[in-house]
């Protein structure tokens, strides 16, 4: 009765190691945490040791080793990518942070490893905190000294191919396609509403689900999508950007896949009330008079009413409507619309307010030029605690990096580059990946990506940021440059 599909074994291992891997991740994290807190004869430490042994045993029934490898924001157990669920999300994040801080790729435990080997490993882990250069070598040398080298090894960071990702094709091309679809969806929304049709959120949900898939890819910097700006259709592209930023930020906060979709949908619809604001007011170059300002301020409540008149009804829908209502309410309960009975804002509203402001500030409007990303971050920090949740602002900055994606930077080599990917690790936040802008169209360095953590043979950094710069000064079209090698699926034309 069994169907012999080529993917059967792969699927079986995926299922098995997802289940066992979550236990292993919890076991290892608890063990290493206890190793830092307690002496080896401590009861809690010994309990976590036993729990770790129990979590490894079933893996040895399948393979002769049990390995955990941290790869960017993902953990692989015996080469199978394990997605976190509610049972292990905290351990998952903690292990990623812990291993990345130490520059260690993972740990390999071989069959035959005993409790003493693990106790020795815990001791070594405990006394070798991050900061030291070539920590990985030190760890493995000490493992050898303890006589555990046949059973335990710390491994180098490496890229592990994920079969799921490989099958999805070029993520940037796909991302642009989804982005375009999302703008098209929003563009069509007022027409549908005007015609009395209830616009279903079904299509939007599929698009946001695609965004969430993209956000977890390790070969694509999803946040870069928010660098795309569209001056003529600002309201639509801004909404899509807010959705992108919300998802990206929500992922850092450890939200689940379906929560990310809810948050992304909330971001996409947060300004739906603006669809009924006359275009001459939206695009007014000067200051609003009091009537116009009132109309602008009403977009939050209008958006709320628009959303509740849509046919959907459920928790995700409630959250969307709450965000539409609250995204201009301040953290200190000021802002608008004023509530007669002010209560703390929903988490999604606080996230969306930050993403909304960040994207609005970094977009050129008829009434304001665009701020550079790092300027926008600075302003967010200045207003945190009043307009914005200070903790979330700090987390947002931490997620975006001190030089957010799209920032034009001047390097100590004299080169100019655009930040392509923030460095999430605290000690290296000022060392993102940068796409180099050549000095001329035929410069061989044009478009190459430089990792600013790269060092030369003497251990000196090859490139360091001197300061951020105004893209106009260099005549750089940031979004176009970041996506310059993408061809649209429809036309085959380079953009």
């Amino acid at each position: 009765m069994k169907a012999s599909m080529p993917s059967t074994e792969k699927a079986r291992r995926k299922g098995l190691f997802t289940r066992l891997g979550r236990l292993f991740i919890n076991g290892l994290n608890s063990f290493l945490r206890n190793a830092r807190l307690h002496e080896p004869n401590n009861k809690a430490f010994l309990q976590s040791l036993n729990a770790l042994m129990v979590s490894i045993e079933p893996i040895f029934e399948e393979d002769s080793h049990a390995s955990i490898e941290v790869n960017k924001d993902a953990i692989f157990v015996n080469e199978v990518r394990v997605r976190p669920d509610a049972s292990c999300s905290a351990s998952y994040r903690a292990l990623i942070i812990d291993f990345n801080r130490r520059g260690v790729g993972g740990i390999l435990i071989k069959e035959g490893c005993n409790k003493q080997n693990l106790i020795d490993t815990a001791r070594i882990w405990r006394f070798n905190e991050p900061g030291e250069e070539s920590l990985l070598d030190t760890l493995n040398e000490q493992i050898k000294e303890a006589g555990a080298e046949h059973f335990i090894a710390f491994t180098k960071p490496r890229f592990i191919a994920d079969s799921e990702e490989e099958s999805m094709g070029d993520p940037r091309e796909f991302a642009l396609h989804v982005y375009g679809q999302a703008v098209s969806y929003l563009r069509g929304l007022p027409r549908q509403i005007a015609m009395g049709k209830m616009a279903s959120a079904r299509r939007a949900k599929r698009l946001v689900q695609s965004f969430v898939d993209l956000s977890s890819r390790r070969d694509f910097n999803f946040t870069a999508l928010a660098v795309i700006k569209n001056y003529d259709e600002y309201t639509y592209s801004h909404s899509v950007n807010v959705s992108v930023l919300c998802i990206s930020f929500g992922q850092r906060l450890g939200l689940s896949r379906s929560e990310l979709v809810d948050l992304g949908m909330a971001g996409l619809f947060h300004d739906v009330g603006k669809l009924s604001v006359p275009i001459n007011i939206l695009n007014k170059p000067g200051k609003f008079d009091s009537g116009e300002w009132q109309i602008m301020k009403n977009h939050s409540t209008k958006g709320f009413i628009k959303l509740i008149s849509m046919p959907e009804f459920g928790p995700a829908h409630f959250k969307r409507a709450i965000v539409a209502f609250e995204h201009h309410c301040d953290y200190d309960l000021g802002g608008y619309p004023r509530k007669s009975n002010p209560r703390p804002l929903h988490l999604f509203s606080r996230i969306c307010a930050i993403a909304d402001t960040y994207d609005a500030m970094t977009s050129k409007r008829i009434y304001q030029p665009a701020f550079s990303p790092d300027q926008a971050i600075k302003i967010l920090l200045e207003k945190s605690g009043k307009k914005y949740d200070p903790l979330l602002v700090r987390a947002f900055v931490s997620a975006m990096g001190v030089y957010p994606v799209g920032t034009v930077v001047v390097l100590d080599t004299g080169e100019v580059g655009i930040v392509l990917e923030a460095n999430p690790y605290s000690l290296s936040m000022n060392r993102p990946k940068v796409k180099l802008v050549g000095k001329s169209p035929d410069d061989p360095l044009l478009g190459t990506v430089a990792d600013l953590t790269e060092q030369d043979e003497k251990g000196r950094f090859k490139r360091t940021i001197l300061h951020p710069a105004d893209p106009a000064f260099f005549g750089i079209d940031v979004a176009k440059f970041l996506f310059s090698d993408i061809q649209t699926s429809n036309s085959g034309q380079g953009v």
Partner: protein
Amino acid sequence: MDKEKGEVSDTRDLAVLHAFTAALARTVKASRIYLPNNEVLLTFKSELKDHLKEVLEENGELELDVQPGEIRFQGSTVYKDIGANKGFASKIYNDGMRRLILRQGMTESELDDLLDVMVTDYEEEVNLEDDLVTKVWEKDFTNVEITIAEEILRSTDIWDPNAVDPEKVASYLEYAGPGNEDEENAMVQEFSFLGTVGPSSYQHTVTMEELKELEAEVQKARLSNPLLAFNELVFELLDSDRNPEELRILLETASRNLYHMASQGLLEASMETVERLKSVGLLLSIPDMDVDKEVENILARASLQAAQRALDYAEQAQDVRTDELISFLKILDGTVIDLLFERLESTKRPHVRSALVEALTHHCGNRHDILRTKLLESSNPALLRDLINIIAAIGDSGFLKYLPKFLRHHEVQVRAEAVRALGRFKSAEVVPLLLMALKDPQERIRLTSTRQLAYSEDIRAFEGIKERIESQDFNKFSMTEQRYLFTALALLGKESVVSYLSRMLDDTSGFGGHSSPKGINAVHALATIGTPSALDVLKKGATKGPRKIKEACNRALSKLANKRSG
């Protein structure tokens, strides 16, 4: 017993698959009808799990093809709909499911997720934002694979391949960066007080403590019910000036909220919503709109639906507070009466029953017609008991005329309820009826009736009780009934029966004296009366009477003394 694909399945294999697919279809259907913790559904689920385990243990993996009206395995039909286009297979086919693969290692939660995917009615579900594609994505199955029809995946309604004009994509990439340099410089100047932007100018990392705080924030958001915050905002807007169209949308949403709150057993919030809806009608005045009428209509409809859902929840859940359920059912619109009666006939849960009785007592306070009709029409003993209870709680003497027939009802419990109800009517009309009940063949009815008569302060009651004590059958009564009669006699007669009781202590009185139970009961009755003359009789009995009477009198006296000393 693994077989290669293409191998002809044997009869047993097919039988196992027939059983599994039938169980799957049955469970999906039941999931649409019953609440999650319904016993029938739980049984079906448990059977389904057993079938699934058997199938996967034997075969490791199961690949089913979904076709219109049937499900096939390797070309053999393993499930067939009975009616065309109406059955389980047709439903999942129409939803877009084409192939279903289940693998060994499938967990219980994956099975629940699969059922959720199959149960959702994508065409009629209120929450229209999901289709099969979004739902399957959301589940993120590991051991389940669902192949979805290409036309659903590429549905033009959902996914427009021509939506992105290449020219447009190019225009998205036109960076909207600085245009007017002067303007930008001015803007940058405005914020120049912020100083140099750069890694050293601000804290850019999150500490471990802050990470924990963030995790707690996320957890708090997970645990909070967005419906409550959402409802707050609906009323926030209802309290402000709105145009009629917006007001209708908001009122409609509030009524939907009420329905959902009741479905989740959030009775306190539901009550608050009803109260606030009522006040909207009172407070708002909008030109060209009868807000009061609008609210009244909404409330009538919403009340009925909310009551239904709250009662559904209360039937299943363990965490319902009866007092909250009562309060909620009471504040609803009177249109719920029929529903409450309907539920009263069907409920098996005592706390729901008592809530319904209380709520009906409230709602029927000015709807006697409905009660009268029910009293006349109902033959269900349980319902009759509740109806009698309700009319007694309302206490309108107009209902008294319906009670005599229940004193002759064949069900003891109905008669008992009728006697109890009579006692709650403070009316002289009830005494003859209670006296009639004193002759009921069932002792518990007689006891209830005696107790009710004891507090009636009616001379007819006294005479009736006395008659029972003096009847020839007295000695056949149980000790309890004898004691009840004497206590009632004492309470009704008080001082006037002291000499009558005193005579019963006398050995030569002809009442049977100390050798009869009457002597001892008389001692208890005198103690109940407790007046000085009654105490004198007891004291006398304690010194001069026969031994058993002496002992009884001494006990009664010491109890009284104790009572007095606190």
